[in-house]
């Protein structure tokens, strides 16, 4: 131990997430970001599934910390989180899956409602996440106004912190939220909960444009999530965003699969379809 806090950043001061997004940009494509709750359907299987996501082309995996009261999730992710909780998934398991993602060569983020992190201890969580090879976390019910401790902890450990913007965000809030974010800012494409949709919301592109205006020239990437569940939709979003975020589509494939082999095959193929979309749609 050097006495210095452990950090998620490399010697050059960047996280795996930042490098992954930069690489996608250099390659003239949008990054593909997939979501899966840790422990869904059980810990060992979830590790196999995230490996399939990475092998299929996910640049980044958001590892979900399953929570008993997922206010912002629709039925698919609720069911996935319920299964993970029923399997006894703990924050330590979440960090195991983060390690697996990092070992598979992708950037790992944690996606969590705030209470489990608060309970774990904000500073301790940041330290353990950095040690596990995580790049940072997405915190969908933590607003920058309430994030004082989280800002300190993520700074101390060089972690990215991803806040959300929504179509209803005012310009003032877009500036506040993008100013607080590091790694990227998560643009929620529509007013609603997670889940697959037949079409990409018409609100998405306008939000990305407004968000970029708020960001100015800092270069913070803008990634779009909520309701994206096909290669075609990924291509559409890749036409204007830096990253495409897909969650419920992966969870649904695992829910529908007869066994783990079928799940990893379906998830891998889906990731390939999305990755192709993310390449095709780029300007």
């Amino acid at each position, binding site marked *: 131990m050097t006495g210095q806090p452990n950090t998620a950043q490399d010697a050059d001061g960047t996280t795996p997430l930042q490098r992954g997004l930069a690489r996608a940009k250099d390659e003239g494509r949008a990054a593909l970001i997939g979501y899966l709750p840790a422990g869904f359907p059980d810990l060992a299987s979830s590790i196999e599934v995230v490996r399939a996501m990475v092998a299929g082309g996910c640049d980044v995996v958001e590892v979900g910390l399953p929570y008993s009261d997922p206010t912002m999730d629709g039925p698919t992710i609720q069911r996935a989180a319920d299964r993970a909780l029923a399997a006894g998934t703990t924050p330590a398991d979440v960090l195991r899956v983060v390690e697996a993602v990092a070992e598979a060569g992708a950037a790992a983020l944690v996606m969590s409602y705030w*209470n489990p992190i608060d309970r774990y201890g904000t500073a301790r969580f940041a330290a353990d996440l950095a040690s596990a090879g995580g790049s940072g976390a997405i915190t969908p019910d933590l*607003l920058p106004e309430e994030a004082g401790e989280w800002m300190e902890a993520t700074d101390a450990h060089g972690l990215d912190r991803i806040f959300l913007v929504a179509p209803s965000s005012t310009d003032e809030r877009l500036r506040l939220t993008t100013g607080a974010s590091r790694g990227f800012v998560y643009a929620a494409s529509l007013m609603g909960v997670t889940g697959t949709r037949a079409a990409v919301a018409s609100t998405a592109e306008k939000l990305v444009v407004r968000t970029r205006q708020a960001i100015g020239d800092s270069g913070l990437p803008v990634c779009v999530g909520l309701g994206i569940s096909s290669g075609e939709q990924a291509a559409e979003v890749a036409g204007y965003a830096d990253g495409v975020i897909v969650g419920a589509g992966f969870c649904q494939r695992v829910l529908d699969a007869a066994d783990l082999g079928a799940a990893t095959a379906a998830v891998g193929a889906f990731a390939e379809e999305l990755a192709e979309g993310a390449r095709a749609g780029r300007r």
Partner: protein
Amino acid sequence: MTTETTGPAATGGAPGHFGRYGGRFSPEALVAALDEVARAWEKAREDKDFQEELDGLLRDYTGRPSPLTDAPRFAEHCGGARILLKREDLNHTGSHKINNVLGQALLTRRMGKTRVIAETGAGQHGVATATACALLGLECVVYMGEEDTRRQALNVARMRMLGAEVVPVTIGSRTLKDAVNEAFRDWVANVDHTHYLLGTVAGPHPFPTMVRDLHYIIGREAREQVLERTGRLPDAVSACVGGGSNAIGAFAAFIGDPGVRLYGFEAGGDGVATGRHAASITGGSPGVFQGTRTYVLQDEHGQTVPSHSISAGLDYPAVGPEHAHLADTGRAEYRAVTDADAMEAFRLLCRTEGIIPAIESAHALAGAREIGRELGPEATVLVNLSGRGDKDMGTAAAYFGLMDDEGEQE
């Protein structure tokens, strides 16, 4: 600053914060709507026309002011302390809930919204919301855990009779907290024309403050009534605490009176030590739940632990953030009352005063027996009788074995 009907400033901290509690832990997508409600409420509470309309409804529709009733025969079981009951049970729809609902329903109309959603556990808040929506011609959707729709079938029928759509929630533990989650999910998708009429002093800012303001009338009336009746302030105020809206309404008028002790009685269920209870302050720990920082029933990993109480209205695994602050500062004291003690107080009030209380309110009555004995016969204890017990007859009949074919009683 403050108006006739609505209350004092928050008890500490930045807007929406109560010391280290409260605040706003919600999706960014809802911030604009929460800000809109906060602004609309700030304007409405200072607006003479709004206040006159609300005061008129509270008087002519709800039946306010609610009476203050001496309970001398019940007081014999409270160490001889004088017991005064604030009769929120006599309000239209049978509980204090209507105070908040009428205010927020008027606010909904003022914001130009046409649809109201609400959560309900026992059904009292849902019935009050359906009532106000019928009165004002607003579309009404009430989310209710599937378990609760079965336990409270009569209230489901009431809401439907009043024109509300009742949606059974079939996910999670299928109780009140899951109904709140589902209402938030609806709100974020329909926020342009929908107001979420939250039923207690929980949730993200501005709900804890706005709902408190709308129930302040309980304490304000009671304070005047007690002064007029006894010539002095009460020694103690007793109220039941689930989310804590009736309690905060009763407490708010006395917080500035250091001589008045404030007691909140939580649902102790089978006893806090058994783990089967709903006593968030007594048996929980600080955390973030459904939009606010407060005391929560949670496990070591921050997962919500299911609550338990014989009273559906107190069966919630958290508490309003202002109560959390009042507990930490010591201004109010919170204790747990078991199902058994609450039911004994329930029976006692029926037999001694001819008043059937809500089982929720019976927790405040059981608490009054305890503090009456502690404070002695010179003391005056104000009890907020937050609701009536008609809705609880099924539970009481089963508990006491009142049906003829159920044999010997107790």
